[in-house]
């Protein structure tokens, strides 16, 4: 019997010929991702760092993105502590305020490679499955230990195979696919599992795959991955990585899956995850009575160029409804500059959008668009938990950039198909 993607990566990296689900293996990740929480992480091991130093100055990747630029003296001091740590230990992969969201930076800089392993002190570290990397989230304490040792344990997960069949309708996108899947399988439907996406994936761009892998955690998955194909190779080429720079791993044809699911993409309609759970699946067309006070396009899920283009195509020549506000956050400086060059930023601004700096923005409720009691926000983010955007009496609806853009025009939740 063959092995799944997760089994093969973990076998290879732990020096085992074969591993089975449930087995505990020791691995050394290629990189350890941290963001603003690097301040708290390094504070835990201040004395240990004096004694032992960092295990490798190339291991950590630190991106200041969560509350960036700083919103208070406290967050400013966190950033200052991170810069001191970076200088003192000559950390090579450091990206200060303005570079963008950590997951996008890892992706753009080629720090997550096919067949590699990346761990990160952020739950959306699972995003790099888009390029066939085994990546998953850990907590701050484990990140602290990894800075010192470079090694940790992983339990070999069971694997779920999801086959995507058929073609998407116009103005239905990757976000709708993953919200549909999570609605089907439930927020804990893939807990502890590795998820592999197969089928008609050639139609999904690398950005689409990122959206889907990013939200793997919202069904409880340990990682969520696509096989490396021409689309992935082309993307990696575009950032200067040739196939000889990585060692892609594919599941065996006779791998054993814990569960297999099939989804017909042509039947998927624009989906909205209603408050306060990501698996609370509704259809945009059924929510046209729901007024929204704020519309957010951005975050690590949907702040890429294709997302901004999709939103601009809908908003071009139109105005944001006077009873709502539109916030736009490019996921990185690179995306911001590309969108500027293409005139996308101008289109979104002319429509009435507020362009925020590359970063996480209001997604986690710390700044730049916190909600008031009773307000409703439709967002391209990945979580709609109660209190997520800073107010427990507010409501968050999750949707695609197309649906959020259409909703911004009408001031109420709008299906982006057809006339708006």
């Amino acid at each position, binding site marked *: 019997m063959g092995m799944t993607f997760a089994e093969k990566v973990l076998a290879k990296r732990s020096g085992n010929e074969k591993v089975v689900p449930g087995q505990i293996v020791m691995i050394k990740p290629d990189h350890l991702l941290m963001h603003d929480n690097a301040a708290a992480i390094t504070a835990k091991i201040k004395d240990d760092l004096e004694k032992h130093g960092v295990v490798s100055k190339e291991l950590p990747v630190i991106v200041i993105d*969560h509350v960036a630029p700083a919103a208070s003296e406290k967050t400013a001091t966190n950033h200052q502590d991170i810069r001191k740590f970076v200088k003192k230990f000559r950390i090579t992969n450091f990206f200060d305020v303005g570079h963008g969201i950590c997951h996008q930076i890892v992706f753009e800089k080629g720090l997550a490679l096919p067949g590699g392993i990346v761990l990160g002190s952020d739950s959306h570290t699972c995003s790099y499955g888009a390029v066939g990397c085994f990546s998953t989230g*850990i907590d701050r304490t484990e990140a602290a230990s990894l800075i010192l040792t470079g090694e940790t*344990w992983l339990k070999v997960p069971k694997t779920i195979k999801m086959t995507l069949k058929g073609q998407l309708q116009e103005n239905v996108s990757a976000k709708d696919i993953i919200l549909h899947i999570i609605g089907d399988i439930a*927020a*804990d439907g893939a807990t502890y599992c590795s998820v592999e996406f197969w089928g008609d994936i050639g139609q999904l761009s690398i950005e689409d795959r990122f959206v889907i892998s990013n939200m793997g955690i919202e069904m409880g998955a340990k990682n969520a991955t696509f096989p490396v194909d021409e689309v992935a190779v082309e993307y990696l080429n575009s950032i200067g990585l040739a196939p000889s720079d990585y060692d892609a791993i594919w599941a065996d044809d006779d791998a054993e899956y814990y569960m297999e699911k099939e989804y017909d993409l042509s039947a998927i309609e624009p989906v909205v995850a209603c408050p306060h759970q990501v698996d609370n699946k509704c259809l945009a067309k059924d929510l046209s009575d729901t007024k929204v006070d704020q519309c957010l396009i951005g975050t690590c899920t949907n702040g890429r160029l294709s997302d901004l283009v999709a939103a601009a195509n809908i908003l071009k020549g139109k105005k944001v409804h006077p009873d709502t506000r539109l916030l736009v956050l490019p996921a990185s400086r690179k995306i911001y500059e590309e969108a500027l060059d293409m005139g996308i930023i101008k289109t979104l601004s002319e429509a009435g959008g507020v362009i925020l700096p590359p970063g996480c923005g209001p997604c986690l409720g710390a700044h730049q668009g916190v909600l008031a009691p009773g307000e409703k926000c439709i967002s391209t983010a990945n979580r709609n*938990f109660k209190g997520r955007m800073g107010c427990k009496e507010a409501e968050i609806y999750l949707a695609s950039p197309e649906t959020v853009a259409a909703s911004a025009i009408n001031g109420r939740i709008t299906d982006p198909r057809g006339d708006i």
Partner: protein
Amino acid sequence: MTKVWKYGDSVNTDMLFPGKYTYTCGTAEEILPHMLEDLDPDFAKGAKSGDIIFAGRNFGCGSSREQPTVGFKAIGIKAIVAEGYARIFYRAAINQGLVLIECPEAVQAYKEGAEVKMDIDAGEIIIDGQKFNFPLLPKEILAIRDAGGLLAYTRNKLG
């Protein structure tokens, strides 16, 4: 009698510890007043060492946010018994030396006011005299928990 705090399914990390405090509260002292703030305002005031938490499916889902595990450990929560956990939370709990028990049968059997006893090392929970068994962690993982958490374990190793 052991005090039990009972919660439902999908208690997420924002309910356990609101995201807006994640970059301003790092130490146990800073974390404790905000524990379960948006879920159960009585918890931070009333929880005591030796208390037990019962919960449903997918406990701790959401962010990589270890503050709730730091808070539970600082309070001295004896164990959390749930039908299931999100994996980052589960891992974070081990790394803080906190005891998590996955035992759906025990959660379903628990009624308010029931007497709860447990022998963690033996893998047993007794609810009003009815015994339930739960699987023990592998020895590699127990070694981390029993060292008092991952940093203590790592320090022992590094010397």
